């Protein structure tokens, strides 16, 4: 078990996501930054779908109540294990009673904690990912406990990896989305030449962008959306849907983020700058 001593800003259990219920309106959820989670799960020789903790902006204080192995990745949050600084992308052996805590957010926005074998909290509709009201809660609070299985003997093949970090990248590569071809030349020019600021309205459902582009008067019937869809409202506002984003929408779907671009954006916070590049 892992016990939450202090919850921090917004920490959730996430796995690869909840699939095959989108036709009933259920968002896929799952980790926002898949590339980072792939790395931390690989380090621990976990399955790709093993559940991790997604830690946003201000980290929690956690106490391990069983032995295991852990690794962190993603945002740099001045993490310490029993008050000693630790690194991202490195396997640490955990003893019962060890305390993991986080300090100042140095870079990025979301940090991921993986344990050997993954967290084993309850699966609902095929996934452990938090999404209220499918899960009872939307984030961890003080004194919550998250189960994981005890590992007898694990010898990590690699104890740490050097990763090419994308935390400094700000260009989001995109492909066409269904309404791309009805955008005006002016709108296209603006999308691909402007620098946009991530608005403070950003969360697991969607990232709004502050700067607007030329407005439009098209209306369309409600149609499917996916994580990474960049919607354009009639007023010219851009909204990037993320993992908890709604499964259908009525706004124009201008462009679609690549898988990597979703990860890059997931590490941005309000005030950060991004731009789009068509590939």
């Amino acid at each position, binding site marked *: 078990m892992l016990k939450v001593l202090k919850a921090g800003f917004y920490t959730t259990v996430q796995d690869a996501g909840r699939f095959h*219920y989108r036709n009933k309106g259920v968002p896929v959820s799952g980790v926002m930054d898949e590339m980072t989670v792939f790395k931390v799960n690989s380090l621990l020789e976990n399955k790709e779908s093993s559940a991790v903790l997604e830690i946003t902006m201000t980290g929690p204080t956690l106490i391990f109540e069983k032995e295991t192995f852990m690794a962190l990745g993603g945002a740099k949050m001045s993490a310490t294990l029993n008050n000693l600084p630790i690194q991202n992308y490195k396997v640490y052996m955990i003893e019962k009673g060890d305390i993991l805590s986080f300090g100042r957010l140095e870079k990025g926005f979301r940090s991921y904690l993986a344990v050997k074998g993954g967290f084993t909290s309850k699966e609902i509709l095929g996934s452990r990912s938090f999404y209220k009201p499918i899960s009872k809660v939307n984030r961890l609070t003080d004194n919550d406990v998250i189960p994981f299985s005890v590992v007898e003997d694990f010898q990590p093949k690699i104890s740490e990896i050097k990763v090419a970090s994308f935390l400094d990248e700000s260009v989001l590569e995109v492909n066409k989305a269904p309404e791309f071809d009805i955008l005006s030349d002016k709108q296209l020019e603006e999308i691909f030449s402007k620098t946009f600021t991530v608005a403070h309205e950003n969360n697991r459902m969607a990232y709004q962008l502050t700067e607007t582009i030329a407005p439009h008067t098209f209306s369309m019937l*409600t149609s499917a959306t996916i994580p990474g869809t960049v919607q354009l409202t009639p007023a010219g506002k851009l909204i990037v849907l993320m993992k908890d984003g709604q499964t259908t929408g009525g706004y124009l779907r201008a462009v679609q983020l690549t898988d990597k671009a979703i990860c890059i954006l997931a590490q941005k916070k309000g005030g950060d700058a991004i731009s789009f590049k068509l590939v």
Partner: protein
Amino acid sequence: MNSPKIHIKPFGVHSVLIEWPNEVSEIILEKILHFERFLNKEVFTNKEWELVPSYNSLLIINRTKQIDFQKLSADINNWYVQLKESPKPDRYLWRLPVCYDLEFGLDLEEVANHFHKTKEEIIALHTGATYTVFGIGFLPGFMYLGGINKELELPRKATPRSKVVKGAVGIAGKQAGIYPQESPGGWNIIGNCAVPIFDASKENPCFVSVGDKIEFYKISKAEHDLHRIEAEVGIYKPEKIKINA
């Protein structure tokens, strides 16, 4: 038989959108669902694929792999022109109880005033229609219902509510629906349905599917309370009638 034309559009590297003519039509919806059944049964049998129908479109998503757009769109066109008539699947008309007491129908008086009708007349118009489920989205189990009586079409509220309760029955424009969970919302609220449209504890969390029909009937507060208790303990049983569309 002449099939309505389709357009296939790229949507990122993992999905492809098939679009039918831009209209709300049960004929088009039937065609989409017919094609979706064929694709689910004959083509996209692997768990990697997911299909999402809505109004005049069908989204095909592959979870991990990149789609070869040119090849898949050629295939889709071929499959579509060769699509054979097939036995219609079981469809259901769901009859859902609604309590229209003012405690729940927060906007019922305003709606009645807007149309210069009595509350009873509004309720009769709402319960008198058979609705078609054109899509499920926005929230888990949120149905986009078409088929509202023209005399009940009115705009969304000028200022959306920051909190609409679970089960709230709403109307807006040409659409009707039920909020399956507490949520912000801008629809005009005229009643409440205690039967949960979405229940994550069930293997099939949402008994309604796109293409099904919905009717509402009026119940008293006492009956509503009883349905609410049934819902809490998980023994509710929405009334259904098998139909063949």
